């Protein structure tokens, strides 16, 4: 791919907007099974090193910065993606273990695994016959 200006200088229109509105909200899928939650987030255009995932208290914060090399002399004529960042915040419920989040990132899709804390793991209660 040719080196050039990044996306942010070419297709971006609303760079001066307030922080919250300047970011796009990535589409996500959230799936829960017995041992935890898996979150998939669409972050096309974000290279691995521009992705940030952090847990602050009960909040899980996903952020990513777009980086798309376009030719330096390019003139943007149509932009549906016209902001340079993604951001989305989720509240983690108490049984989730924010310290043990693991992540994978491939072709713009982030896969996050948030396990349930030990004490919240399902336990099968045996019904005694009396």
């Amino acid at each position, binding site marked *: 791919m040719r080196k050039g200006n990044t996306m942010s200088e070419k297709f971006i229109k609303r760079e001066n907007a307030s922080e919250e509105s300047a970011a796009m909200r990535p589409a996500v*899928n959230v799936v829960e099974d017995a041992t935890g939650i898996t979150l998939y987030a669409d972050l096309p255009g974000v290279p691995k090193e521009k992705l940030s995932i952090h847990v602050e208290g009960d909040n899980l914060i996903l952020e990513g910065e777009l980086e798309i090399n376009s030719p330096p002399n390019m003139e*943007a004529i149509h932009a549906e993606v016209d902001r340079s960042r993604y951001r989305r915040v989720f509240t983690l419920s108490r049984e989730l273990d924010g310290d043990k989040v693991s992540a994978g990132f491939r072709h713009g899709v982030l896969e996050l695994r948030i396990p349930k804390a030990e004490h919240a793991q399902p336990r099968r209660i045996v019904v005694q016959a009396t």
Partner: protein
Amino acid sequence: MHYRGIFPRDLFTELERLQREFDSSPSIRGAAPGYPAMNVGTTPKSVEVYAFAPGMTPEEFDVQVENGVLTISGECKDIVPPEGATIHIGEHFSGRFRRVISLPDDIEPNSTMASYRDGVLHVCVARREAAQSRRISVQ
């Protein structure tokens, strides 16, 4: 199929599109602008198209230039949850997609290149040399 005229010469297409967007009844093909989201730019030598379609592999795209029209299509596989799992949020696009854009008159369809990186498909369609503006010296 989402048809968009984005080059200035397609004035009628553009007007029609604007009309459609202001129309209160939604299209049967869903809300504009369709999947994947696209950005388009031009340089004197090329038309640059960026399609934001994460979670694919390069082989899963079908990119065609025919009669001055660029078509990007493919199928985005669904994320299959494990047995017994509950889906809480399901926003990820899945299924077949197809987007069509009309290109300017001066393109060279045989030198089209496409690459896929970080979930973005980049298609570069070359424009003919002749169309590039040249300074004419006055005798």
